């Protein structure tokens, strides 16, 4: 177990900067998730941390030791890869014990520790098999076993669940969480899946274009996003965005006067999460005509057009990740029957609104 301090780490390929002054202080035993879209630099950061890629600048300290220029094997870390990277020519037991063998650990100690890790992960019956004889979930367990058997200072996990089917992913997510609780080893976990980030992390680091957008615990990340990107990235379905003009601490949404923070003045982008829209009248009430209703049993997703005065900003309409265009989404729980084309009364609490500066994207509080 160890504290990890990443200080102004940079990575450039010529003029292309894939990581820009990345700094992060990870406490001993913390579970930190790096999350962001493809190409945001999260996997590069993890590889630099592992020593598999060289940083263009900055320093990394693990357990108080400067490891910036050390080989991967000398950093006292273990890594779990997206594609498991099990050695196909070795048995499960040999795979798990490989790292210890490389470090000259006596055979009886290796056997004992492999047995122990296998018991924790429930793979004792698989020890003599080869990786090709295992299912995806079993391979993932063995990959985790190979990491924990070394008893390293930190675990690095690079999208370890993305090759599993949805059901197994949920199961393994819980298992990794339980394993972290049990072992208390500092863990840095990379994913593009915000649900994994929200459910597993003590702290989330959201990245975009090689830069940290926000570092916060999952609740803060959801409740107080630092900017438009974070607001749109966290939450499923994503946050609704509306254009408005604020003056003297108020703005107009759906034709109603709505209070906004005093710092908001002029053009603003308002964010409202789908789950913060409720069926029936409330603090701010409006009518909506659903163009699509998706029923998930206990909840419904209602799609409706934003009013002309509050059409979402153009750049958000063009977003690849959000194909909803100018439509808004409300996530209603136990709302009763809602039909396409028939007006429905909706409302929201203005305290739930998020206000952003459309020029900088930063939150206004």
């Amino acid at each position: 177990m160890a504290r990890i301090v990443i200080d102004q780490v940079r990575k450039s390929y010529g003029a292309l900067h894939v990581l820009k002054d990345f700094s992060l202080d990870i406490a001993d035993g913390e579970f930190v998730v790096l999350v962001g879209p493809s190409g945001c630099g999260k996997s590069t950061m993890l590889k630099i941390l592992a020593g598999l890629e060289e940083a263009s600048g900055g320093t990394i300290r693990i357990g108080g030791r400067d490891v910036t220029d050390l080989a991967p094997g000398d950093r006292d870390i273990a890594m779990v890869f997206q594609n498991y990277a099990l050695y196909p020519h070795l048995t499960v037991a040999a795979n798990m014990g490989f790292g210890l063998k490389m470090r000259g650990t006596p055979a009886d100690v290796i056997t004992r520790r492999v047995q122990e890790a296998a018991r924790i992960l429930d793979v004792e019956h698989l020890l003599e098999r080869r990786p090709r004889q295992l299912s995806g979930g079993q391979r993932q367990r063995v990959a985790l076993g190979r990491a924990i058997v070394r008893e390293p200072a930190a675990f690095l996990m690079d999208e370890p669940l993305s090759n599993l089917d949805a059901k197994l992913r949920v199961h393994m997510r819980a298992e990794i969480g339980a394993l972290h609780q049990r072992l208390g080893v500092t863990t840095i976990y990379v994913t593009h899946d915000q649900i994994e980030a929200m459910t597993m992390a003590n702290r989330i680091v959201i990245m975009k274009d090689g830069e940290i957008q926000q570092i916060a615990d999952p609740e803060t990340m959801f409740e107080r996003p630092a900017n438009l990107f974070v607001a749109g990235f966290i939450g499923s379905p994503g946050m609704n965005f509306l254009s408005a003009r604020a003056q003297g601490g108020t703005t107009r949404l759906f034709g109603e006067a709505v209070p906004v923070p005093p710092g908001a003045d002029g053009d603003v982008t308002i964010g409202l999460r789908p789950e913060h829209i409720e069926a029936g009248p409330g603090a701010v009430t409006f009518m909506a005509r659903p163009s699509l209703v998706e029923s998930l049993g206990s909840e419904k997703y209602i799609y409706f057009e934003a009013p002309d005065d509050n059409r979402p900003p153009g750049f958000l309409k063009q977003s690849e990740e959000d194909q909803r265009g100018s439509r808004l989404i409300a996530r209603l729980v136990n709302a009763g029957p809602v039909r396409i084309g028939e007006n429905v009364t909706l409302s929201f609490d203005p305290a739930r609104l998020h206000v952003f500066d459309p020029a900088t994207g930063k939150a206004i509080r």
Partner: protein
Amino acid sequence: MRQSLPARLFLYASVVLTCAVLIFPIYWLVVTALSQPDQLRQLPPKFWPDEPRWSVFGKILEERPIFLWLGNSALAALGAVTISMVVSVLAGYSLSRFRVRGGQSLGLFILTAKMLPATLLVIPLFGIFRMTGLIGSMWSIILAHATLIIPFTTWMLKGYFDTIPRELEQAAMVDGCSPLGALFRVILPVSAPGLAATALYGFVLSWSDYAYARTFLTNAQGNWTANLGITTMKGEYISNWADISAASILVALPILVVYLFLERYLVGGLTAGSDK
């Protein structure tokens, strides 16, 4: 999916025809070896001799130093393949994994060397071996064959290494291996089928060489390879094709043995299960 009867008939007919085309020369070699010399040119030809001369093999082994020639061929092939594999493994791995300035051009240069006919190198190699005093020694043929084999095997192995996930050696390095340690402890064992196929290919290239052996070993009778030895059985006025065919069968056998030995590696899918 179940195929229709005509489609299946066509498929089987194609397989039988292909096999026939491939097997016929071998069959005819055996027929020639077992026939009486005076029956070889008779018309219509006999598709199996009336009295097969099985004793021809014993006679050849008695009259000609076949084992010496085979030993020399094996020595040349093993030497050339060993040198080639050491060079090609390191070169192929580097070309596959490291992005260095000029690396791509170097790879293309090796590819170009592959396109040159072997005979083009005979004269410069002869000059080099004469200067170094290697003409007539087994080293001349080993080194010459290595120049022939290395471009092929380097590209074959580069292609094979390209298919192995990089995460395997990254995992090995995190587990404490040096880059070279990861190559030897993880990548090479995983590459066994590729290495076997490449080595076999190099072995066959060396084994089937005639031009280099003829040029560099003609005056060193004790170092003759099998191919060179067999051609000396062809006289200026009389050629005993039956004996030559029998010797050719004996010379082809080791390749078959090597193939049978490596066959399980050639068809093995050892990397299955390493990743998704």
